[in-house]
């Protein structure tokens, strides 16, 4: 991980920031492409080429700029910038809790963007996104706490450099994280607030319904950053070796792709119940175990 590199070699934070901002969308876009290709193959189809997301992005940016009101763009920028900020924070080895709060701010601005128009679908999507936020946020915070208990620090750069892989001490938290990863990426069975790719949703495209063209492109870009952020967070569980971190991230990535293909969408009430019992339960058990 880059954070460790800074800690060890003292690379300037500016370079890390720049590298993150540039490299993350490339990785995120490619991963999205792989995701779509893999999903297609799992469904016995050929699927799009893996660089398809980049075509989509360029096309979206070249589309006519239409909006429902003048302020929609604001929320998209806030969402994107804060998402980048949380990823950069992670790469710079900052306080995990602070990163999570910035991350939450990013999600909230997307929610507000959905709310800002008088479109019922967009707003129902936002309401559901709030429910998703409510579901995963405590698990994220508990995860940070579990990591603190295991390593004695909230700083990512200290977490990386501390002794054993976190997986040894936090296996259940890792499992809980896998659950909320699916929630956060809005993949089936938790694709409640918006529809990914060609899924057909009762709320059309949920909170993205009213975003089109370049705005949608920016959100897509933010999604790539988000994907990289979440996978890097997963990599933290085996951060002692670069290969370990990549493996952990890859396992999470494949997990969510497969889960996405083999499950139907659930209702948000069920999601809340499931994440709060299984996700929180797993994390809590692990943390209680750490206390003992």
């Amino acid at each position, binding site marked *: 991980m880059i954070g460790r590199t800074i800690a060890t070699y003292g690379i300037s934070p500016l370079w890390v920031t720049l590298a993150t901002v540039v490299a993350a969308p490339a990785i995120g876009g490619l991963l999205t492409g792989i995701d779509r290709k893999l999903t297609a193959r799992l469904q*016995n*189809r*050929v699927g799009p080429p893996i660089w398809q997301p980049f075509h989509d992005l360029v096309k979206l940016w070249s589309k006519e700029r239409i909006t429902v009101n003048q302020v929609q763009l604001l929320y998209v920028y806030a969402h994107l910038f804060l998402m980048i900020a949380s990823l950069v924070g992670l790469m710079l080895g900052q306080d995990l809790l602070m990163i999570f709060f910035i991350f939450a701010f990013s999600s909230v601005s997307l929610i507000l963007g959905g709310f800002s128009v008088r479109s019922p679908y967009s707003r129902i999507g936002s309401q559901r996104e709030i429910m998703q936020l409510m579901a995963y946020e405590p698990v994220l915070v508990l995860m940070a706490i579990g990591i603190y208990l295991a390593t004695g620090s909230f700083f990512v750069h200290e977490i990386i450099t501390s002794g054993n892989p976190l997986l040894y001490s936090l296996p259940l938290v890792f499992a809980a994280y896998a659950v909320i990863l699916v929630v956060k990426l809005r993949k089936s069975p938790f694709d409640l607030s918006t529809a990914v790719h060609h899924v057909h949703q009762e709320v059309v495209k949920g909170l993205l319904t009213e975003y089109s063209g370049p705005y949608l492109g920016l959100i897509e870009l933010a999604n790539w950053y988000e994907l990289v952020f979440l996978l890097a967070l997963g990599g933290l569980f085996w951060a002692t070796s670069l290969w370990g971190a990549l493996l952990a991230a890859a396992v999470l990535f494949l997990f969510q792709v497969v889960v996405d293909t083999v499950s139907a969408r659930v209702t948000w009430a069920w999601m809340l119940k499931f994440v709060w019992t299984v996700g929180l339960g797993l994390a809590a058990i692990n943390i209680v175990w750490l206390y003992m």
Partner: protein
Amino acid sequence: MFEMLRTVMQNLFSRPATRLYPKEQREPFPSARGHIESVIENCIFCGLCQKRCPADCIVVDRAGKDWNLDPYRCIICGVCVEVCPTKAIVMSTYFRKPARMREPLTYHQEERGRPPKAKPGQDPGEAKDQM
């Protein structure tokens, strides 16, 4: 979920079911109804096809020796092919390819035995040789 997991895993390790349409084209079934074409030199302008066509897409101009077809209204039921006494209408097994303009076709019979001439739009013909 586990039932589905088995299916998708089988899918992953088997060839996709996809027919790569423009690259590979499947031979149509022999009985396939693709589109109708006129063999205008056989036409006797009896008007039976016009009378029986459910979609009213054929207009036979006996005086002008024109056989007009609106291929963009034709429902390809094949009734005209069945009723034509001289087999002047044939059913092709290939579907008619998409077009940018929709204009009716007019087959004009110059003289018996001469090759047909389509006007004013070109007969879009078959999709096979296009893609």
